[in-house]
């Protein structure tokens, strides 16, 4: 189950952050997302031999904690998508598929002429669409 998704700007400024959990651990999830930014910078600037290709958008598993797994995705505009999940056996294909849909929703949100690039995404339809994508994660349905 996905417990948190985030969109972070190219200057590491939060553009959108949403947690999907009953418990009151939003702050903890924010911290997890924040920590993952360093991992992304490390991945992109110092790629390892066995890591995904230097110019791959899907960054794969960033790091696991005892409760969560954090996955990342970096767009051409250096905007980072982060997904925190409690599932310990997430298929790479499912994560990729999730980020593709998430990216599509983000593209539609920023294509709005009234959206100011670099500012937080306040679109309610974007929020609703993200919730739908999160709910359909791993079930093989399309949003």
């Amino acid at each position, binding site marked *: 189950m996905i417990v948190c998704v985030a969109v972070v700007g190219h200057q590491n400024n939060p553009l959108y952050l949403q947690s999907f959990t009953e418990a009151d651990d939003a702050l903890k999830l924010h911290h997890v997302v924040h920590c993952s930014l360093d991992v992304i910078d490390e991945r992109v600037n110092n790629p390892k031999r066995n890591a995904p290709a230097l110019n791959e958008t899907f960054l794969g598993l960033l790091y696991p904690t005892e409760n969560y797994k954090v996955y990342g995705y*970096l767009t051409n505009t250096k905007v980072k998508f982060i997904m925190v999940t409690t599932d310990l056996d997430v298929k790479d294909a499912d994560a990729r598929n999730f980020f*593709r849909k998430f990216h599509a929703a983000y593209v539609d949100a920023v*294509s709005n002429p009234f959206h100011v690039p670099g500012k937080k995404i306040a679109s309610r339809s974007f929020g609703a669409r993200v919730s739908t994508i999160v709910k359909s994660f791993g079930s093989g349905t399309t949003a």
Partner: protein
Amino acid sequence: MIGVGKAKQYANVLDKPLSRGRQEVSLSAFAFLFSELVQYNQTQVDNIAELERRLEDAGYAVGARVLELLCHREKGNRRETRLLGILSFIHSTVWKVLFGKVADSLEKGTEHEDEYMISEKELLVNRFISVPKDMGAFNCGAFVAGIVRGVLENAGFPAVVTAHFVPIEGQQRPRTTILIKFAEEVLQREARFG
């Protein structure tokens, strides 16, 4: 994409083919809208340089969005990290989506290492525009220069992009050249990549 040809009219929405096909915007509708954009900005400025800057800013917003859209749609999960890669992406993919064809040419500047040029025999935004003599070298291609700058800057390749007219012998209308001058950091990074 701005289309020159007529789009086929369907009386019934059910007759429309399901495939997306060529999605075109009427050229005359675009020309009218662009004309309004230029005229509006003309009322807000005192000099030509300021008018070009405003058109460039309008284009920049388009470029930033076009990059995000096309990278999701066309790039197949790849980020562009190389200079020639992003230039050919603009010259082919971006141009084709915006203007329905690949740009006429992409050349490297002969005098400076950091300069590249995209040339168009007849830039679409200039098609129905004739610049008055009192406006000197004003070029509405500044809007397209802004689009190019928007794509480059948001992809991590900061550059100064300008539009210029280049006269051609034996032709009434000059060709338009989009001159791209990259920031020093871009060339240094490119050198590191080898």
